[in-house]
């Protein structure tokens, strides 16, 4: 697509439920990144994909968080057994190759109640 697309734009979920956040990067971009932006915080790196593999998943906060990418395109970030501290804006970005300036999506605002 022309830009990075994320869905849903907003998600309210009950504590303990699982959620899936989707990112559709710019067509042809091989690198994909997930960041988290909590209220009053900066951007926190979560995971990096090059193609379908994730060389760096060091930023995932706990084993409740996982992500996958298929076909070198769409990525899904899954949060299991959501907690209130998971409430944040989850941002996805892509680049043509490793490094360079990111193109960000508009984010998914997750609220855990």
């Amino acid at each position, binding site marked *: 697509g022309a830009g990075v697309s994320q869905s849903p734009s907003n998600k309210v979920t009950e504590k303990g439920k699982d959620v899936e956040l989707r990112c559709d990067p710019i067509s042809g971009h091989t690198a994909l990144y997930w960041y988290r932006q909590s209220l009053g915080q*900066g951007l926190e790196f979560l995971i*990096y994909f090059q193609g379908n593999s994730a060389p760096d998943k060091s930023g995932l906060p706990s084993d409740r968080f996982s992500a996958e990418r298929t076909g070198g395109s769409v990525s899904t970030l899954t949060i299991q057994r959501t907690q209130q501290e998971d409430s944040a804006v989850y941002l996805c970005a892509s680049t043509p190759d490793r490094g360079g300036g990111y193109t*960000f999506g508009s984010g998914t605002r997750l609220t855990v109640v």
Partner: protein
Amino acid sequence: AQSVTQPDIHITVSEGASLELRCNYSYGATPYLFWYVQSPGQGLQLLLKYFSGDTLVQGIKGFEAEFKRSQSSFNLRKPSVHWSDAAEYFCAVGLLNDYKLSFGAGTTVTVRA
């Protein structure tokens, strides 16, 4: 340790006045430098980037930034702000052939009439 510092959390400026946002970094090598802007409810948009060459970089929306190696700074400037420039601004730093960007905590700009 690598770090990015935006010393100003919040800046208020009058419409038509000049704006300067500060960014300092601590990296072992000359980094790649970026400025992003985030309007409320939106993702991050790239304003400009510095990789090498001329240390004064022109970006979109009338912004420019100057890389000063001796001061480890990459300050963002605009000669005359518009009400639409009210947003949050993030400085980001990365390394050659690295994929991960480190972001500052952001500076919120308020524009008063």
